[in-house]
Each structure stands twice: as C-alpha cells, then as structure tokens.
C-alpha cells in the first residue's frame, strides 16, 4: 500500500523535473494571427505604488506582446466604493492600458462591493457572473463569494452550451487549489465546481485571493493558476507542496496568455520585469473516459487522474 502511494510521487517528481528543464530563454509567444491574447491580474486594487508599477510593466510588455484584454480575479478595489476609490485603485494604475483601448473583464473578490458590476470598464454589465467568447475561447467569469445553486445551475448550462470544440477558461476569486498559508484551497467550492470542470472539459482555471503566484500541476486534467499578487503581496506565504508546479511569492506579478489553436502559451512577469514562469499547455481532444460520472455528456474527456498527464505536452516552466 505504501509502495503504491510512493510511486506516483516519484513519477510526479521526475515529470516535473523533465518539464522544468526548458527555461524562459526557450519561450516566446507565437503571436499568431487570430490568436487570443490577454493578461491576468488579481488582488490588485490597492492604489499603492507596487500596483502602479505592475501597471507600468504591463504597458511595457504590451509593446512586444499586444494583449487585447485583461481579466481580473477580484479584489479590484480594496479601499472602498467612493468614486475616488475607483479612480485610485483602478483608473489611475491602468490609465495607459485603458487609453489604449484594452478591455478589462472583472470578477468580484471578497473585498469588492457588488455595485462594481455597474462600472462599465469592468465589463460585467450589471451581472455578478457572466460569460463571453473571444475567438475560440469561452470565458466564464464567476462570483465565488456567493456560489448559490442558481449560479451553479447557470454555470452548468453555459458549460454544456459551449460544446466541446473550443477552449473553456473559468476565473473567479477563491482558488480551488492553493499552497499558500494564509487562505489555502477553497475546499467547499472545489466540491461544487471541480465535478463541473471535469465533466464539461474546462481547460484552465484562474483564481486569486492568496497574494502569491502559483501554478498547480493539472488536477483531473484541469490546469489551475493563482495570480493574487498584482497589487497585494504576502511575501513568503507560499508553502510549495506536491501540487505546486511553480510558485513565486517574493514580489508582485501578472500573467500574459496567448491561445493559438490547441496551445495556450503563458508567461508570468514580476513587477520589475523578470520572467518568473512560462510555458505551453497543449489541449488534447480525447475520447470520453469510461466509468466517470457524467463524462458521457462531454466528447472532450479529461483523464480522471491527479498529477501531470504524460500524454499532454504540459509545462515548460522555469525551475524554482
């Protein structure tokens, strides 16, 4: 029994080592025509200098990687809901991006006020949760503060309606997997959302809440990222565990993503412009796994196993 438990760990370590061997120097965004390009920020709305510096770094990065929109993972405004808070925590730090026509698509964090959904630059259109499509990618923006049965039913119907051919990306505030000490994983939320993600073939999930960056080894075929350090930071809060593929908790950061065909390229950059993680996720369309609950509804099966999948190209991350 004990030997059976040890083997996957060894395999995990070996696979991680192999995949980590391609460093940042090998990584480049393909900048393909018609690809979907975005940036990811979370827990950013402090209105303080580090957030402004991340904003400046995003502008700099956009000169070579012209992302078209930004998804925010919540805690968009920490300081309050007065007009000056919208200005200080959002409009000023991202002024250059907003002026350049970059769209933001926000979700609510536990520090946000529900009325933020009426703020046009957040593109929430008055809704706490919503979905939209960019190219061949469906985005599902959720309210993890309030995952009531109505929202769960809505998500399931939207995931089902999205079909199987396109990418499915979910994002919300509370991370289902996290190795950070302060919050850690939202287990109650995981119980409700993970079965839907697996059943309907969600490819990638972004969350914040913990003020660190962490990339998680795929869990049941789903890739998870935490980016909760685009303004706030809990330095040294990460406790890398067996699920951690890469972590960064010594400075603020943001992510850039390009989705081209069946490949998702990602790069995580620090406030000072250092690339702290990068890689490619290759999406494979596989036959439905037998014996997995509800999988028959999804043509795009995800292997119901934990840890990296050897038949996926996986990550080319920078070693810790």
């Amino acid at each position: 029994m004990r030997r059976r438990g040890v083997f996957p760990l060894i395999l995990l370590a070996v696979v991680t080592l192999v995949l980590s061997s391609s460093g940042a120097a090998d990584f480049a965004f393909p900048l393909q025509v018609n690809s979907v390009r975005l940036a990811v920020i979370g827990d950013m709305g402090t209105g303080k200098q580090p957030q402004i510096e991340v904003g400046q770094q995003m502008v700099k990065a956009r000169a070579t990687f012209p992302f078209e929109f930004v998804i925010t993972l919540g805690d968009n405004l920490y300081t309050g809901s007065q007009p000056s808070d919208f200005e200080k925590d959002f409009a000023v730090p991202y002024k250059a991006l907003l002026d350049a026509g970059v769209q933001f698509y926000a979700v609510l964090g536990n520090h946000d006020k529900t009325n933020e959904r009426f703020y046009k630059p957040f593109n929430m259109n008055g809704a706490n949760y919503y979905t939209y499509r960019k190219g061949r990618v469906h985005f599902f923006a959720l309210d993890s503060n309030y995952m009531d049965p109505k929202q769960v039913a809505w998500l399931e119907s939207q995931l089902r309606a999205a079909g199987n051919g396109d990418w499915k990306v979910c994002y919300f505030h509370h991370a289902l997997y996290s190795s950070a000490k302060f919050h850690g994983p939202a287990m109650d939320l995981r119980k409700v959302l993970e079965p839907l993600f697996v059943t309907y073939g969600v490819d990638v999930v972004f969350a914040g809440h913990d003020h660190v960056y962490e990339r998680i080894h795929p869990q049941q075929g789903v890739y998870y990222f935490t980016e909760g350090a685009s303004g706030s930071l809990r330095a040294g809060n990460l406790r890398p565990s067996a699920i951690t593929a890469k972590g960064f908790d010594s400075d603020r950061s943001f992510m850039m993503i390009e989705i081209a065909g069946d490949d998702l390229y990602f790069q995580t950059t620090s406030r000072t412009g250092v690339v702290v993680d990068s890689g490619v996720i290759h999406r494979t369309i596989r036959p439905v796994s037998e014996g997995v609950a509800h999988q028959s509804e999804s043509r795009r099966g995800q292997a119901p196993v934990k840890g990296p999948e050897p038949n996926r190209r996986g990550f080319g991350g920078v070693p810790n």
Partner: protein
Amino acid sequence: MRTKCWIRCQGVTGLVALSLCVVAPRMLAGLGAAPGKAQADDAAGFTEFSARVQAYLRLQRTVESSLPALKPTDLPEMITAHQEALARKIQEARPKAKEGDIFTPAVREAFRHASQAALGGPRSASSRAYMQPGAPNPRMRLEVNSLYPDTEPVTAIPPELLAAYPPLPVEVAYRVVGRTLVLLDVKSRLLVDVARLILPPPS
C-alpha cells in the same frame, strides 16, 4: 385589476413553490416516518421568511422606481449616487425597521437548523477554513437599516450553506459575519435584517 390579481396569485403560487423546493428535500430525507414537527415548523419558517422578503422587495422596488435606473456607467459617481439615494429612501420608508422584522423567531429557528445541518459535524472545519481568513470583523456594528461598512470584506459563504437556505431574488443576498446571518440589500448596501447566533459555533 384583473392583471394585478393574476400577478398576485402568480406571486403567491411562486412563493409556495419556492418554499416547497427548499423544504421538500429535507422532508423526503425523512421518508418512512411522517415529517416531524420540527421539519414542518422549519418549512413554515421558511415560507414566512420568503413572504417577508417579498414584502420588503415590493417596498424596495417602489422606492427604486422613483430614482433614475442604475445602468452600467463609466462614472463611478453615478453608481455611488444611486446607492446612497436608494439607501436614504429605503431608510425613510422603513423608519421603524428593527431586528426580527424578517428573521422572526420561527424564521431564525429554521435558519439555525439549516445552518447546523450544513455546517455542523465533520464538514465544519473545511467550511470554516473557507469562510474565516479575510472575513469581516465579527465585532463589526450590525444594525438594521444601516449600511454594510465600506471597508469590511464579505464572507464567502459555502455553497452547501447557500443550498440549504431559501433562494433569494437578485436584489438581496445573505451575508455572514461571525455567527450572525445578515440579509443585505445589495444595491443600497443596507442591512435589511440581522439574525444573531444562527451559525453553529466552531467545533
């Protein structure tokens, strides 16, 4: 007149259906034996709650209809102005609002039982871990018809707990502060009612 009456009938039917949806699964769980008195009391408590929430919403909607509609805007001052005006008008419309207007003793009991069933026992630890770090100050001032403080975060409520409570229309939401359950008007950010010691203590 006829239309009004039909709408009212529809509303009542909906209310009864809503309450049955919430209570029926719990009653079915006890099949084999006649539903106990406690279950029937909880069902009645939730029906009463839903009726009181609907009554509040009638007032809230009337008040809001007197204001320019809040639509997505580039101007945060429009959002703030709407929220403040709505809050002020609701406060004026319910000058005598007090704790227990909606969370009556029977309603509180129903919520207490539902909370205990959802959060008690071995599930408690993971739910607390989900709710507590970054939660609002449990000693924050909670007064009916006052504003939820701008500087306090909100507690993420476990999905299991939300599933155990009666569903709410979009205008209002549950909030949890320590062991207290709050009914919040989300647009005005007013505390519609407050029920203390509803959630089970940490085990």
